Each structure stands twice: as C-alpha cells, then as structure tokens.
C-alpha cells in the first residue's frame, strides 16, 4: 500500500506582523515552517503504515527552502519524499496539477492524504481538489484511521460528533487534528534525512506539465485592514445591559 501525503512549507504566523502604515505583511522576520496542519496528515499516514505495512511518500511543492520540509517529513518517518521544485505562484490549481502528476509518476497511490489549509495558506486545502482531479472519492474531516481485518475505516468529524466509514481505495482524505499530536522527528532519522537517497527532486517539465496546466487560478492582491485594536474601552450600564452589549460585540468578532 502506498500512501502519499501532501505537505507544504508555510510561514510561521508568529513571525509575521502586519504593517498598518504600508498596508502589507511585514515579512522581515518571517520564518518558514512545515505547515503544522500537514503534520497531522503525515502522522495519520505513519500510523496506517505501522498497522498494515506499506510505504509513505511525502510530496512537497516549493522553491529552495521547501526542501527542508521534505527532509523533515523523512525525519518524522516518511520512507521517502518527493520535492517538486516550483518557483512560480503556488495557487490551489497549480499545486493540484503538480501533486496529481507526482502521484502518477510514482506509479499511483492507494491513499492520498492532505491537511487543512494553514493560516497564511492562500492555496487552501488540497484534498477536495485532488479528489476531483484524480476522480477518487473524498473523505472529509478525517480524524483517525482504523486498520481492521475487514479493511480500512476512517473516523471523520461530522456535525459535532464523528462518523465511521469504510475507505474504498483509492481515495483522498483531508486529515484534521485528531486526539493524537504528530510525533517528533526522531534524532536517528534527523541524522540521515539530509543524506542521499531519501528525497527525490523533480520538476514540472520532467512530469510533462506545461505552462498552461500550471497557470494560477487566483492571485494575491493587497491587504484589507480592519480597525486597529483599541484597548481600555469601558462598557457602562447595569450588569445585564453590559452583558448584552458585550455579547453583541463579541459575536460580531466571532468570539462567541
């Protein structure tokens, strides 16, 4: 069984500030990181492999620093990683075309896992697009997979509870954070992850993809800024009035 995990390198949101004067993101101290959402997908894949064997391949699309994410996937336990060097804009459509081509070049897969989109990730979650592109069923909001003699089952979030459904392979699943946290990279894997033989470097031309197939479906414009945070506001009135007013304010901010 081959499980492909789509992983992205994003930016650690804690290292990004908003420049209100320039109305743009201040990325001077930004640090790249493997998107935490994608580590949950890798963890799910590794657990399936541990229960029923097979191979876990991480597919990472990106420019130079994205190699680190491919290596990190190997350090966490992926058998190997494919790093697709792509310097252009990585819209959802572009990423889907590249990952689909990689799955085909790998000789197919039984299961493709992807995480939710990250905070600054404008390409968005890839699972739904990949399922449509590959023509495979989509399992949304998967929290966990159970390997049983009868086959593979997914436990997926469903309206506040969860539902258990058999996985008909091949399939694509979007993994959301479940009860278990992704494992730490293991030192003995960290030690070898940068050695030869773990990461294959591919590019779009090698996979037979042309410019048109990779054209972005969306591009980024400027920022729209809300009101600046204003501290120290006092809400008057009786406790009941203050409670009502505050509840209204917090609902507007989607905090309730």
């Amino acid at each position, binding site marked *: 069984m081959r499980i492909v995990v789509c992983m992205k390198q994003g930016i650690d949101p804690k290292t990004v500030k908003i420049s209100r004067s320039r109305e743009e993101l201040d990325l001077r101290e930004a640090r790249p990181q493997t998107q935490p959402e994608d580590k949950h997908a890798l963890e799910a894949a590794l657990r399936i492999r541990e229960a029923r064997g097979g191979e876990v391949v991480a597919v990472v699309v990106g420019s130079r620093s994205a190699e680190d994410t491919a290596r990190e996937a190997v350090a966490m336990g992926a058998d190997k990683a494919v790093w697709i060097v792509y310097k252009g804009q990585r819209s959802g459509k572009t990423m889907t075309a590249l990952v689909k081509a990689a799955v085909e070049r790998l000789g197919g897969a039984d299961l493709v896992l992807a995480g939710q*989109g990250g905070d600054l990730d404008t390409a968005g979650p890839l699972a739904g697009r990949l399922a449509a592109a590959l023509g495979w069923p989509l399992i949304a909001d998967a929290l966990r997979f159970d390997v049983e003699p009868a086959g593979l089952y997914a436990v997926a979030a469903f309206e506040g509870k969860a539902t258990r459904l058999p996985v008909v392979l091949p399939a694509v699943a979007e993994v959301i954070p479940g009860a278990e946290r992704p494992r730490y990279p293991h030192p003995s894997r960290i030690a070898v992850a940068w050695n030869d033989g773990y990461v294959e470097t591919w590019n779009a031309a090698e996979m037979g993809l042309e410019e048109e197939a990779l054209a972005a479906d969306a591009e980024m414009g400027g920022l*729209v800024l*809300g009101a600046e945070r204003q501290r120290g506001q006092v809400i008057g009135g009786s*406790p009941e009035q203050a409670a009502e007013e505050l509840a209204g304010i917090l609902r507007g901010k989607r*905090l309730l």
Partner: protein
Amino acid sequence: MGFDLSDLQALMGGSFEEPTGESGGVWVVSPDGLIDDAMLRLIGKGRVVADALGGYVYLLAGCNGAGADTEGAIRAGADKVLTAGGMPTVNELADFFRERQPQAVLLPRNRLGKALGPGLAQTLGGSLCPYAADLAVDPIYQRIVAHQPILDDAARMQVILLAAPAVAVMETALLPAAFNEPWRQGEVGDTQLMWSEPPSHEMVDRPARPITLKTSPVVVVAGQGLTDDAGFAAAMELADALGGVVAGDVTALDMGWIGEESLVGLTGETIGPELVIALGVDGDTSFMMGVAEAGCLVAAQADAGAPIVPFADYNVVGDPAEFARAFAKAARG
C-alpha cells in the same frame, strides 16, 4: 481615441446587456436545501456582487428546498430560486453548472460547502477561495475579489479569482445582516433534477482532543474580586456557557478554587487564547504578562482605576460575579 462599449461598461461598473436565461450570474448553493439566516446573508452578498457585475442571483437548493424560506430568499436578494431533489455530489453539481457558466458560485463554509467547493472549482476549471469573509468586484477589470482572513482575522488578504466560475466558500458569520426588501420580486422553479441521496452515517463518539488551559480558545480567569465560593461558581458557569476552561490568578490558587496547573500568569501558564474573560482580577504584572498574547481580553472588576483597565480590550466596572451570571445568560442567547 475613444471609448468602446466594453470600456464604458467597465467604468460604469455594470453591463448594459439585460441578463437572460439561466446562464452567467451569481449562484448561491444550499446543498441541503436549508435557508437559514446564514444563507440569507450569503444571498445578500451574492446580490451585491451580481449588481456590480450586472447579473442575476440564483439560489440553488437541494433536498427539494426542504425547509426553504423561498419568500425570504427573494426578499434577501435572489432573483430566482431553483430546487432539486437530494444532495449533490461534486460531479452532479459540476454537471449542472457546466452549461450555465456561472460567473460566481457561493457556498456557505459548513461541512457540505467545504466538501463541495474545492472539487467544484477544480472540475469546472474555475478559481477558488476556500475561506472568504467578503467578496468585492474590482471596478476596472470586473474580476471577483475574495477577502480571505489571515492571522486570526487580524487582516484580510485579497484573493483575485481569475478564472470563471469564481467559487467562494464563505464564512457566513462574518457577513453583514441579510437584506429584507419586500419590494423584490423573483420566481421559484424546479430543476427536475434528482441528486444522490445523502449516505447514511454510522455515528461514533468523536475522539476527544484534550482541552487544556493551553489549547482552549476561551479562558475564564477567576480572581480575588469574586470574593467567595458563590462568585467562583459564577465563573465556572460562565466558562461552561462559553465552552471554555476556568483558570485563576494567585488568589484563586490560595482560595483552593483552582490547582496549580490552572494558574495564569508568569508564575503559572502563559496563555494566548482567542478570548480571556478576567473576573475580579485587578491585573498585576505577572498576570498581565501571562495573558499578553490573548486575542481579546475582557475584564470585569470593581475598581475603575485598576491597572488592568487600560490593558483590557473591554472593561465592565462592577461586581464581577453578578456580571458573570448575566453574561453567561447573554452568551447562551
């Protein structure tokens, strides 16, 4: 040098052509046929976009429009309400839209919308914003621009949707209130389509992700001003109503209300949840540095001159326990 008609159209922000038939336009999709307030707001946003583009707003409702307030949908801005049986799969929805060539398809950002949106955009060769808080139309090029919240909605990134249809999965809670315009007219029709029956689900308990002081999005902090056990009970009631956890300052620890693992401040845990409600906490350095990363801090305590007042986003000056009880009630709605 002169204007041709299309330049003029672009400058006027609209089309001179009368929309006809069911092609083009802005489509709002309710896969399960439900038309609640969230859907009405989404229709309203569709209306604004359609007016800028010069087109119709269609509402497509699954499950034969079961529970669909079609009148409300028309008052909220829909020109035409179409119903279909069952719930669509990605392919069924794509087949429906293929000939109609919509300019935009709007889905609510719920379970169904999130599952359908990306696949629909992919299948139709359109463009996608998977998480949109707002939509606008760029007046020069008439392109649809989605506003995607970033950094916990500290700002929104403009995502220019280049290919038609522009599929936007929209966070309806962030949209303005729905229109209610009784003079609007519209028609109701049936597509005669029968989509798939929704699959039955074997429900199981959701594997619990432990909610701790560090991971909870809402934290209620109990402090000295709650004075007694009844006051602390009000804090617990509020935490329950908000679906958050209760924590405390050093006084709460000394009173035995909380354990050491629930202590907030430099001497305990440094936390950064979306919302902190501090009850009866006047705000020493240790506490304030412990919650400095919080997205929003609400403080309720008796002293208008306490150090926490200028630091908190919102203050209620008065008895914190009384406020906590009133707020729990207000939050439960």
